[in-house]
């Protein structure tokens, strides 16, 4: 996998036996709003650029956690469009899965932020955040 510049890690997908309970603790610690919630997962964060997804695990082996890394100029023949608005590639390392992404386009509508969620604006005033949710799995 080749790329021009690493911009930084911007997302985590973590298996959880109690996504709702963990989400409350994450929110209490970071103040991040819930972007999307379903029986299977709770996604917290500010959008595709900064999120934590807690994915429910029921018995059996849990899927590996995912770490999402944003880069510039991802050069990989296997890059695929994803709903976060990027082209990305995956690599499994056993204990974790790495997703490397170049953001290229607007995120899919299921990444739009819930009304009323707030994130700081450049001028310091808070404003409505784009209701967005979590990675498709």
């Amino acid at each position, binding site marked *: 996998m080749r790329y021009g510049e690493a911009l930084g890690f911007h997302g985590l997908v973590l298996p959880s036996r109690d996504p709702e309970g963990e989400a409350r603790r994450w929110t209490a610690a970071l103040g991040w709003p819930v972007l999307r919630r379903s029986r299977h997962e709770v996604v917290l964060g500010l959008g*595709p650029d900064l999120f934590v997804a807690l994915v429910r695990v029921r018995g059996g082996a849990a899927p590996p956690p995912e770490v999402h890394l944003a880069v510039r100029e991802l050069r990989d023949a296997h890059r695929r469009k994803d709903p976060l608005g990027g082209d990305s590639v995956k690599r499994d390392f056993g204990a974790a899965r790495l997703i490397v992404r170049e953001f290229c386009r607007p995120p899919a509508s299921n990444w739009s932020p819930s009304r009323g969620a707030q994130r700081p604006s450049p001028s310091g005033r808070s404003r409505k955040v784009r209701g967005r949710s979590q990675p498709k799995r």
Partner: protein
Amino acid sequence: MDPPRFGAVLLDLDGCLIDSNDAHAQAWSRALARFGHRVSPERIRREIGKGGSELLREFVPRTERHFLSDAMGRVQTEMFLRAFARCVRAFPGSGSTVRDIRRARIRVVLASSADRRVVQRALRLLRLTDVVNGFTCGDEVAKAKPFSDVFSLAIRRFGLEGSRPVAIGDTPYDIAAAHQIGVPCIALSSGGFPDRTLASADARFEGLAQMWRDGRELFR
């Protein structure tokens, strides 16, 4: 301004050669909406002339900008290019004025913060591709206007150091960028910026054609 004069021109594109500033603001507004930000074209309009990353500072929080500014700029460029034929016009006489300037053996380099494809499209519209000495654009520099990188690159790449270059632009960001590196700047009102925002320019004219007609003595 002191007398005998400029032998090279660092010419801005949007607002100087083509009437495109409103179309850029519209495209930014639509692009930002696709990322969930509602910003009116009127608010964006006064920031036009800055490079994309600089413009986004006004409207997008830092973390989001860090990760998504490239994608936002890409979407804006696509939207602008899609609207180009419908919304963008050459200013009357701008293309012929550049030809006149070149005929006077003054070197002309287009120095724009816009994307390369926008610059090339505009040059084709104006039929100036083979007339100008070359161009530099926003995607070639780390920091576009109001930083001086676009002008510095143009001077270096085309060897204009000894030619007494002058920048010609339509925004306060052109003036700031030129003055950072000690290059004088002629401001044109054709881009729609209020005169008070162009007050620090070394000279001011309505448009490029009028500049060449009434300010010919400024050039070699």
